[in-house]
């Protein structure tokens, strides 16, 4: 009997060690204590956003949150948005983010950056998926186990609704990259199905899905453009490929990229944000949004954002506004 008691005690302590910290890890707690800076943190950050406060949701991998600055969209167009991309996100990760967001938001537009359509997303077996789902639901520590990284991730700097200010410049010097290698680009069936699911979630919530490709010589070429254009046409979704508008945007690959053409930096993001903001402003009506309650908090954050960015990108980006 004593032996059983000992074993039960061991397991009980173990269950407590795993269960109790998870119970404390509410979205509010995590955001308040700066524990939501990791990949999964985007879920907690979205959950603390006031209900129905977002006009636009941006999802995808790192290409998404390095191309759209929500604070700039707010300042110049009065559009509230959240850059809910995750580093190295698979398309199914973006679907999960969308589901989390839709618990509290009904954005008018979901902007899905297309880079993760080409990322391998292995299908989990039913049992693995079910078990993981069960464990993550009941033992939140397992799902959020990477929180210990959060303080380290703050090195990246403060998040402005998912956007991080990066002034790093590492030029891309490879020249024109939107050329065809006459290669057939494949998007896996799993990703195509996930894309359909994303479209269905948007449709159900009265949200319009827009696909867009961030300017990135490292990740895009003309063959990918053709494939994405075909997919979006087939699905009846608008597709904006910013790689075909590099000149129009005024992207200068000597200064607008932080890592040799993989991602844009603050200066590049200013240009793409302005293009997308102008596009959204021209094609959609965001005047009926109910964000009066949050104007103060948005403006407060905007002040901090402007203090950290200066007004350089504002000068650059105002120039292309009148194109629409």
């Amino acid at each position, binding site marked *: 009997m004593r032996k059983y008691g000992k074993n039960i005690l*061991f397991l009980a302590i173990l269950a407590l060690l*795993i269960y109790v910290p998870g119970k404390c890890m509410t979205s509010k707690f995590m955001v308040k204590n700066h524990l939501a800076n990791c990949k999964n943190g985007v879920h907690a950050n979205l959950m603390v956003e006031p209900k129905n406060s977002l006009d636009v949701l941006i999802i995808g991998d790192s290409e998404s949150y390095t191309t759209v600055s929500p604070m700039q969209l707010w300042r110049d167009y009065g559009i509230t948005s959240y850059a809910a991309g995750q580093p190295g996100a698979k398309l199914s990760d973006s679907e999960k983010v969308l589901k989390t967001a839709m618990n509290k938001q009904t954005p008018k537009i979901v902007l899905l950056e297309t880079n993760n359509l080409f990322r391998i997303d292995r299908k989990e077996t039913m049992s693995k998926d079910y078990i993981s789902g069960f464990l993550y639901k009941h033992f939140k520590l397992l799902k959020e186990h990477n929180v210990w990284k959060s303080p380290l991730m703050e090195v990246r700097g403060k998040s402005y609704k998912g956007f991080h200010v990066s002034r790093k410049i590492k030029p891309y010097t490879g020249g024109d990259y939107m050329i065809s290698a006459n290669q057939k680009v494949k998007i896996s069936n799993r990703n195509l199905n996930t894309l359909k699911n994303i479209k269905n979630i948007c449709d159900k919530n009265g949200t319009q899905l827009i696909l867009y490709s961030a300017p990135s010589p490292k990740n895009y070429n003309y063959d990918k453009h053709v494939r994405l254009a075909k997919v979006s046409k087939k699905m009846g979704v608008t597709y904006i490929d910013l790689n075909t508008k590099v000149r129009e945007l005024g992207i200068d690959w000597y200064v607008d990229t932080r890592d040799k053409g993989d991602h844009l930096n603050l200066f590049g993001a200013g240009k793409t944000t302005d293009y997308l903001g102008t596009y959204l402003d021209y094609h959609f009506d965001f005047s009926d949004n109910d964000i009066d309650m949050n104007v103060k908090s948005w403006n407060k954050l905007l002040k901090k954002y402007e203090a950290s960015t200066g007004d350089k990108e504002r000068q650059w980006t105002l120039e292309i506004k009148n194109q629409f």
Partner: protein
Amino acid sequence: MAYNTNTYFIVFLPLAMILYQMTPKKKRYYTLLLVSVAFFMLISKYLIYWAAITTAVTFLGGLLIERTLKNKELERKQAKKKASRYVKIAIFIVVGILAGLKYTNFTIEIINKFSSSFGTGSNIALLKILVPIGISFYSMQGIGYLLDVFWKHIEAEKNFCKFALFMIFFPTLMEGPICRYSDVKDQLFEGERITEESMVKGAIRIGIGLFKRMLIADRLNGAINVLYKPSESYTGLMVMVIMIFTTVQLYMEFSGTIDIVIGSARIFHVKLPENFRQPFLAESAAEFWRRWHISLGTWFKNYIFYPVTTSKMMKKWNKFGRKHAGKYVTMVVTSAIALFPVWMLNGLWHGPKIPYIMYGVYYFVVLLLEIMLEPVGEKFWNLLQIDAKDKVVSRIRMFRTWIVIFVGEVLFRAETMQQFVSIMKNLFAGPWDGGFFSGKILELGLDVGDYFVIIVATAIVFCIDLKLEKNPNLYEDMVKYPIVYRWAIYYSVIMAIVIFGAYGEGYQPADLIYAGF
């Protein structure tokens, strides 16, 4: 369903334990067989028939060999000759299946390459061949069993179900260790009840295995995938990082999985042979191979190296050589003749890839050089008036062995020989840094936190290895520690896996590398 998945730990293993415990003692091996068949079929589905054929051939072969050897109507020589024929036929079938499934397309590719380079233009289409899981492992066990019966080291098994269990026992199916029938038969068929002690001892090994895999191997996986991208341009520093990362990941992945395997079997009171014995403490490549993938090395030693060195021809050569060429030359030539098939087969065993074959050739050359240069080394230390057994010499040898291992593992991991050459060339020819530490190191999919965990966890594993060197029973002895100390270790390992393990969103666990062989 690999050993490192939650399906295995949360569903499969507990279910296997419950079924095993519910079965009467004498019938427990049936349950283990049933569970092993289920495990096989969950991974390779209907391809189990290949395993069934190999098992049946080996089983019948063993019976025939034994019956022939015991046949009193035949003369000893005649019986041996007849039995030897059965051995050859059975091994031919087992190797035939293995080679047919694993190497047909490889052979076709080579033929096509040759024919295109000679301009004959014939192009044979590749076949769609599905290879069942663990074929290399159970085939080796089967061949070893046939030879052991032939050499009268063991008696042939008369019960087909028991023999089938030996061939496809589920913990050993994917990554070994390659077991000898005599080492595991008693425990496998004994059907001892699962006890608290067997569970705890098994769980400790599983915990250590998960620690190695999830904290280190899985965390390094993303970086390894980036580093081996064909388009990657390598700087000298990057090549060094590749060498270290590849070796560390391979060791943590393989030895971690073997820990899980040994732990799983331990729960059922089956003590599997160890496959690793602190390989990075080896002072020579030969010693490394006595510490790394021990069961494979032992298999080659028992079934290839010894038979070759003790063959009539070699005995004749030894006599002749000593008389005419001297002791040293005879020893080198004998070693070369015995080592060559061992290392060619070792390379081929790993799979139908040129780098694997070259991996075998690489170690053949290194080991032969070690044998050839041993007297020179001794003279060198004598000249410096340093004792060859001195600690400093030992560390230098260890470091030298590490370099051999690092280069070998890059060759092992490379997709093509061109990739290997391009990596190694840049160690000397390319730019040295190329901004690696000033940014590129953080573009491999690992952040500062990841590096921190990898370094600390690797240091912990290294310390455990040092302890194991002094006390090989460290894991088994852990249950004797005072309860507070013991529980503190258990909780620390579990919580380290839970918090610092690389799992969930953003992580792709490392494949069971050896499961592909």
